[in-house]
């Protein structure tokens, strides 16, 4: 969940320094916290990635310094290309469908009808459930031999699909589950974006004889563009980080067919019982760089909107 706020308004400074110290006092817990629980673990993570940490070295703290060797190793690894491609497919497919479905539902709910508020609230449920709950439910629904999805498709004569164990469908299966998880978030944000479009714009269009379809493309979609951009970027940053869903459903398998960068990092460090922290940290740091690139893009868009 990322939150973006306007920078606090600047006010003319009076008695600046005394006020400054008071402010620092109030902010001190946060600053200490950020140093101890953000900066330090992140620093340790960088430190891990430039040493060769075996499990023994990890505990004894005498790992050999290897510079960027681990980065070179992961870039050269077959898994890197696979994981990068999978990350791109998983992320783009997820956010596109989440957005499209979320927007369609937002427009649908915009008009308001009996029970619409209640139903819209119900849509929040998937977003509120612990990810592991949703992921295990999907895993069971998509189970090859006992899953409801195969049973349903079977009724239409579709042969058994090994959703989670076939290299052809594993990535698709986790993407479907992730789209489901992201729809509520998109719906809520886009719905409140729609609220800010004044109703008389539509009335005017209506008088000009524009049907709902035209109204959507000539009013709703253009006016919603800033909100859409932010929704998509937030979705992207969130989806890049996803571990729980994929891990519970497929552990990135079979083979590497549903392994994303985040899953790869998790698996190397914690997934095998034979922790390889150094390459895992290197993958994690690559992931941070990617997330930050889109993060800065997000901030940029935000700033431009504030200026306008």
């Amino acid at each position, binding site marked *: 969940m990322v939150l973006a706020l306007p920078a606090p308004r600047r006010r003319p400074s009076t008695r600046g320094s005394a006020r400054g*110290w008071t402010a*620092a*006092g*109030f902010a*001190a*817990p946060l*600053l*200490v*916290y950020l140093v101890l629980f953000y900066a330090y673990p992140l620093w340790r993570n960088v430190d891990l990635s430039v040493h060769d940490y075996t*499990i*023994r070295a990890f*505990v*004894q*703290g005498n790992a050999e310094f290897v510079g960027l060797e681990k980065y070179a190793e992961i870039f050269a690894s*077959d898994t890197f290309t696979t994981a990068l491609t999978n990350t791109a497919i998983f992320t783009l497919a997820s956010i596109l469908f989440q957005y499209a479905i979320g927007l369609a539902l937002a427009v649908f709910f915009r008009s308001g009808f009996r029970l619409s508020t209640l139903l819209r609230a119900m849509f929040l449920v998937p977003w509120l459930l612990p990810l592991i709950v949703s992921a295990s439910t999907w895993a069971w629904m998509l189970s*090859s*031999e006992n899953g409801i999805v195969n049973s349903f498709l079977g009724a239409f004569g579709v042969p058994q699909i*090994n959703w*989670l*164990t*076939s*290299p052809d469908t594993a990535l698709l299966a986790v993407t479907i589950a992730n789209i489901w998880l992201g729809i509520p978030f998109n719906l809520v944000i886009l719905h409140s974006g729609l609220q800010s479009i004044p109703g008389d714009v539509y009335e005017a269009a209506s008088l000009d004889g524009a049907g709902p379809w035209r109204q959507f493309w000539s009013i709703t979609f253009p006016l919603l563009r800033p909100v859409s951009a932010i929704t998509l970027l937030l979705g992207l940053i969130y989806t890049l980080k996803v571990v729980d869903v994929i891990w519970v459903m497929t*552990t990135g*398998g*079979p*083979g*590497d*067919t549903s392994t994303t960068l985040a899953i790869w990092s998790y698996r190397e460090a914690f997934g*095998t*019982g*034979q922790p390889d922290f150094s390459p895992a940290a290197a993958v994690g740091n690559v992931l941070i760089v990617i997330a930050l690139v889109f993060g800065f893009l997000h901030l940029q868009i935000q700033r431009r909107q504030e200026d306008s």
Partner: protein
Amino acid sequence: MHHPKRGITRPLTAGLATIAVVGGLAACSTADDAGADEAGGTYTWWDPYPQHEDGSDWANRVQACGEEAGVTIERTAYDTTALTNQALLAAQEGTSPDVILLDNPAVSTLADTGMLTTTGELGLDTSAIDENLLAAGVVDGETYGIPIGANTLSLYYNAEVLDDAGVEADSITDWDSLTAALGKVTDAGHKGITFAGIGTEEGSFQFLPWFWGAGADLRDLDSPEAVEALELWKGWLDDGYAPDSVINNSQNTVWEEFLTGDFAFAENGTWQVNSAAEAGFETGLVQLPARDGGVAPAPTGGEFIIAPVQEDTARYDVTRQIVECMTTPEGLVETANTFAYYIPPTAEGQDALLEENPDLEPWVEAVRNAKGRTSDDLGTDYPKISEALWTAVQNALSGVDTPADALSKAQADAEAATS
């Protein structure tokens, strides 16, 4: 940044203090335990059996061995993976316990750090121990511990299903006869075989009997023999003799599937003996066949009793007595019974066990044929090789790669990881 003087920081520092105290307590307790006096003092003991709580048979047995040596044993149980970490950490801080029971593939990892005493240093006699079982604790010719028992894999069958399909259990002596039996069983409308191909150590554990049974070597993952073994598994999947679920099956899941009564065969371990006897159908056991007949070597499971190096070497005498108490023939049988059928690692212990429970004969035979995963001097390389191997199994079974391609990748990965 100016340090705050206001009360606002109090909750934070209080929070930190709590955490520090929690951490401190954990650290202190181990330090105190290990630093206790020798003669008539307290000896520390770690094992990976959190399910056996204080007051359980197992806990009482540990205490009894302490009493016999004239000391009190303070026992702490950790989860298997946590135990390895804790042991390394304690060694680093000089607070090692006197005795640890450790899963056999992890022994070489600890021995490699120099934190374990050899059996020679401790004055233990290991001549009675079966060599194939002791091998997991041998690093560079030195022995670092004694197995307290071993378990391994075998092939359970559902007698009713075999009868119905007209298959004689005795006829299964090599891969061909097994595959032929699977064909008959599936033709008769039953399910064939289930095993654990999961992408964890369990997957390698279950694959090794076939791998070794083909004559393959863990140093050479892409040998023609290895490819044949993987093709055997993959062939069963393709022919519908094994369900798709084997790709994600853990050994527990395999057993649950077998207990449904649908399957003719299930590859599983000594620890299911009781459950098999209580199944709703008649079960039996055949040895895992090697490719061309005979019994395939299955990997051994089970713990070693090891003694970390202590600053105060005077403690070793009592430690030796405790270890000896655990490894007498009677002691081994008792351990075997406490842990749902561990097979003792000595001929004498095995005979004693069979006297009590003749039904375990096939398991004793399986254990005699079994092989430590870290043996052949693989030592600390084993976990890396194993990871490459289970990945290959996953890739081949799911159809990502052919068995040959999957294994040649695995060999490349294993070489890179162990070089």
